[in-house]
Structure formats: C-alpha cells, structure tokens
C-alpha cells in the first residue's frame, strides 16, 4: 500500500483518491458526490498566526465594550456580552445563558487560544506540547462558535428596538463586525493541514 499521506478519502462518500499537488486557487472536489476534498493552503502559518492575533485583540474589544445603547425619555441603557449572559441567568433562562456563554465566549476563546498556541510552534516547524489532544479538541469545537450569528442577531435587535427607543451603536458592535470579517477569511482554512506540516516527534 502507498504511504497513507499519499491517499485521500472523501468524508462524505468514502471514495478513495490519490493526492495531487494543488496550486493557488485550486480546490479538489470529489468526483462522486461533489464535496470538497482539499484546497490549496493560501495562508502561510505566519499569516494564520497574524490573523489569530488580530482576532484575539478584536475579540477582547468586542467583549469589553458595550454593544449598543438605548435611550428612552432621557434614560440610557447599554450592555456588553457578559451583561447579556448575566441578564438571561437572572431571568430564569439559565439554559439560554449557558448557551450564549459557550457559543459566544468560551468556545471562541478556546478556539483562538488553541490555534495561537499550535501555530506559534508550527512557525518553527514543531508540534506544540499537547499537540495531539489539542488538535482533537479543535476538531470537536468545530461548529459551536457563533459570533457571526450574533452580529446578525444584534442587527435584528437594533431594528426591533428602533421602533420604541433611540438607538446608538457602540464600539462593541464594530468590533464584532471586524471579528466576523476575520472569521470569514479564516473559514476556508482546513486546520488538518497542521498534521501534515509539522513532523511527528520521534518517540
């Protein structure tokens, strides 16, 4: 049998392919079911690390700064992400509070920290301590980060509130918009490439 790295199996239909070198802009698709098999890695490890660091800074801002301010007869009210989480907890919606905290705070934070750690070592062509477990954790975090959904939700909330209140957007919402942009750039990245790009340490 050829070396395992030379083969590729479509995750969506189990068809086996021989791996081919891809050039910029190439996307390999499964001839049987049309799913994406692999794409050219347009971003270098350094570029990914830069994006992650930027995302981290923006994420801190998005969480610290208020998102939006409402005004009613001279009274004002604003909130941050954690304000939302605490408010839902106090209003007997603990399940929602936990969901919001996980998908908008803990999971994105974990994802960025793990990636930052792994990429920092990958720059030198090394596997970070705990590489194996962390890569598996990253795989399972997959679709459970929802910052981009929240941006759309904030937009809907603003329009709904606009009927009764004066709405002033705060810096937090811009930070969230920037974060969404970064997430979109990162969306095409297949993190599994880190397995191939860093050599297995000798046992």
């Amino acid at each position, binding site marked *: 049998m050829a070396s395992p790295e030379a083969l590729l199996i479509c995750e*969506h239909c189990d*068809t086996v392919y021989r791996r081919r070198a891809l050039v910029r802009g190439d996307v390999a698709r499964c001839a049987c079911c049309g799913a994406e098999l692999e794409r050219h890695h347009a971003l270098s490890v350094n570029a990914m690390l830069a994006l992650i660091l930027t995302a981290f800074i923006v994420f801190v801002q998005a969480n610290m700064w208020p998102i939006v301010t409402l005004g009613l007869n001279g009274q004002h009210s604003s909130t941050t992400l954690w304000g939302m989480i605490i408010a839902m907890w106090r209003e007997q919606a603990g399940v929602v509070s936990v*969901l919001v905290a996980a998908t908008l705070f803990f999971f994105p934070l974990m994802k960025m920290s793990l990636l930052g750690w792994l990429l920092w070592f990958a720059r030198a062509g090394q596997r970070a301590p705990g590489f194996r477990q962390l890569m598996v954790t990253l795989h399972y975090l997959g679709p459970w980060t929802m910052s981009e959904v929240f941006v*759309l939700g904030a937009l809907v909330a603003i329009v709904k509130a606009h*009927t009764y209140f004066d709405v002033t957007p705060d810096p937090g919402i811009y930070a969230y918009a920037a974060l969404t942009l970064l997430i979109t750039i990162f969306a095409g990245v297949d993190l599994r490439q880190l397995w191939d790009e860093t050599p297995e340490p000798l046992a």
Partner: protein
Amino acid sequence: MSALPRAAELGLIACRVCGLVCRDVRGDERLDGDDRADAMACPRCGATLHRRKPNSYVRTWALLIAAFIMYIPANVLPIMRTASLNDVDDNTIISGVVELWRAGSPNLAVIVFSASIVVPVLKFLALGTLLLSSQRGSEWARLQRAKLYRLVELIGYWSMLDVFVVALLTALVRFSVLSRVEPLPGVIFFGLTVVLTMLASMSFDPRLIWDGKDSDD
C-alpha cells in the same frame, strides 16, 4: 455504482478526526483481541476508527425526534415579553417576525423567518428524508441528497439568531417600570431545538447515502 474505488472495499478507513487514511484491520485474522483494539485507534490522533459513524441511524433518529418534540413548545409558547406602563405583549417566534415585517424592516423579517422557521423545518424534512431513503438503500437522487446534507450542515447553526435577539433585548431594555423585556420559556425550548438538530445532523453519516443495503455498523 461508479467505478471509483471506495475505502470500505479497499479495506481502508479515513479517521473522522484528523483525516488520516488507515488500514481497516477488523477482518485481519492474524491479530487477536487486544492487538486489534489497539489497531482500531488512529495512529496519528488516537481517535477510534469506525467504517461509519457508530449507530448513525438510531442516534440521528433519536436526536431528530427529541428536537421535534422541543420544537412544538418553542413555537407555541411565547419567547419574549415586552412590558411597558400600560400594556404587556407576549411574542411568539411567528408574531415576532410579523411585527418586524410591519414595524421595522421587511428584509430583516425575511432573514429572521428563514433562520427561525425555514431552517429548522428544512432540517427536520431533510434529515428525515435522508434517514428514510438511506435506510432503504435507495439509489434515488444520491448526488442531490449528498448536497442537501451539506446544506443542512452549513446553515444549521444560524437558527440561534432568535435566541441571541431575545438575550440582547433582555439585557438592553430595562427601564424599570417604563419598559422591560423578559425572556419566556419558548426561547429555552427553541435554543434546545437548535442544539439537538445540530447534534442530529452531526450524527448522520453522509456515506450511508452511497452505501447499499445492510451497511450500518
């Protein structure tokens, strides 16, 4: 079937976590007991290797039915209460969409309608269809069914939209007696529906679409 080789026929397994191509040693008689169990873990990432996701049909059905049960109170019960000096207004998901259409922006109402109603219903119908047709080993519209599954995976988590809207409004609209927004139980059921449908689509194995009969393991 096409002439393209399939992993199960070649005795290969793709690791579901890291994607490494591994040899399927289950049928290897030279290995016994412990050796075989060791060999069933991916040598690269340590995840257990399965030809197909284990108990895919049973798990997906169970999660899908649970999600559907949650979806009924999510729609019937109000998700949000808007209270002001002289009136109290309870909104369900649908009445929220209608209000947004009338008072705010029809475009946004269409987006909320898609995220909160169309996407969950599409998920129930799509996963139900995929389960039934794959269990029968049907060859009908395989490519379209494969695409349908990928669509469900892609759009699934956008349903959380309404949950975030309620959470943000609850935190924002707190002007003591003048005006308040409170979450109501519907939103909890809706949040659970979204999580359960996401788990259901994850536990479905799209390779089953391409398998014939009797291949769930």
